[in-house]
């Protein structure tokens, strides 16, 4: 079981959280408003490695937190 450290509640099991998706900028090489909007809405970096993502502590303090997670092993880093 994966555990996340909530700044308010401490170390809690991942069942208490709702996944809020990866945080990523639209790559600079994508040009034009439509293409950038499309990328922002639909595409994912889907990295095989460390990713920055948002989680919502739904069954706890109901705050959003930022998590760095390694997707190749599904472990939380730093």
């Amino acid at each position, binding site marked *: *079981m*994966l555990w996340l450290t909530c700044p308010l509640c401490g170390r809690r099991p991942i069942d208490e959280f*709702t996944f809020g998706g*990866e945080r990523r900028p639209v790559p600079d090489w994508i040009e034009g408003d439509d293409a950038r909007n499309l990328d922002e809405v*639909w595409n*994912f970096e*889907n990295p095989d490695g460390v990713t920055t993502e948002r989680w919502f502590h739904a069954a706890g303090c109901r705050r959003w937190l930022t998590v760095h997670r390694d*997707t190749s*092993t*599904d472990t939380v880093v730093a």
Partner: protein
Amino acid sequence: MNGLVDTLQPLRWDEPKSAYDVVIVGGGGHGLATAYYLATRHGITNVAVIEADYIASGNTGRNTTIIRANYGIPEAVRFYEHSLEMYEALEAETGAAILHQTKGLIWLAHTEMALRSERARCLMNTACGAETVMVTPAEIKELCPQIDLTGGGRYPVLGASHHLRAATARHDRVAWAFASGAMARGVHVIQHTPVTGLLRDGDRVVGVQTADGPIAAGTVLSATGGRVTALAAKAGVRLPVRTHPLHAFVTNNFAQSFAPIVSDTELFCYVSQTERGQMLIGAEFDAQPSYSRQSSFAALRSYSYKVSHLLPFLRNLRILRQWAGSCDISADFSPIMGFTGVDGFLVTTGWGTWGFKAIPAGGEGMAELIATGRPPALIAPFALDRFARDHVLADQGSTGTR
């Protein structure tokens, strides 16, 4: 030992050539089926399927082998219904015993709301050719006597939709049937050869870089599962796909026969019996994306909780094996097949938790697209540019996996 122990099928493995008309990355069901239909339907045999590990070692060998067509949008129902019919004829077509068995699938509803949406799906599915009817709790008990209709006192069963021609087949045999059929016609299947990059000529993709050297290709098709985002990125293609793990497990043999496939609108779990008598159980994919194929105790606990409420006899069985696969979940929960906007580079991806049932129709459609340069009507709606055209095929409710 029993009669299901496989006899050895000698396959002739070829050394890779330096160039092919078509290179397919990924030796799973979709890659092999595309090669098979290129060879049999279109006479295109200068084709290589390049697999990083052994064929069907990815999600083709890890899924729960359910073949059904009861989806939520007409485009999907027509496509999967065609695939279901192709599966029914696959043993006759390939001459390979894929252990196809029509079982029917009951999809349980525990709330009035779920009953309403199942009723709507029955009408829509039947109208599109995938016969589905509503059944009462008494009829469910007749179809599957092992069900506890009170759901352990917690999830009472109010009714279900019954998808009559749902089936299962032996997954690795499906891959082998397509592989041997394609290889017999001259297609090269190259195992244990990871594709590390794409060869570019300007904007065009003109081949693949492998661990053993470059291979030129007129067309490159990505049929990979799990690593498609990284491969597509090498062509400058970005995909609306996230890769999530999905777990499954089997129990020891259940002495009675368990006739239908049981699925659930609320608990997102599905249970069937393998041809060896084991109970095969899967459920929702993990909330967070990951490429890890390490299954977990958390998954066992959550899946067991769900299915033992519906089928209490499972509590007396023992878990033999558990495993995980990598599911490419597309943003709208429908597959992505066809052109990418980059010349020479096609994808068949976004197969999430619904890829096995689509292997014949997906392979046939992609083969026709490669041979003619035009997507056949059945797969045309699933093109990648649907997101830019705002023709999204939202069908999450029909996946049964989240």
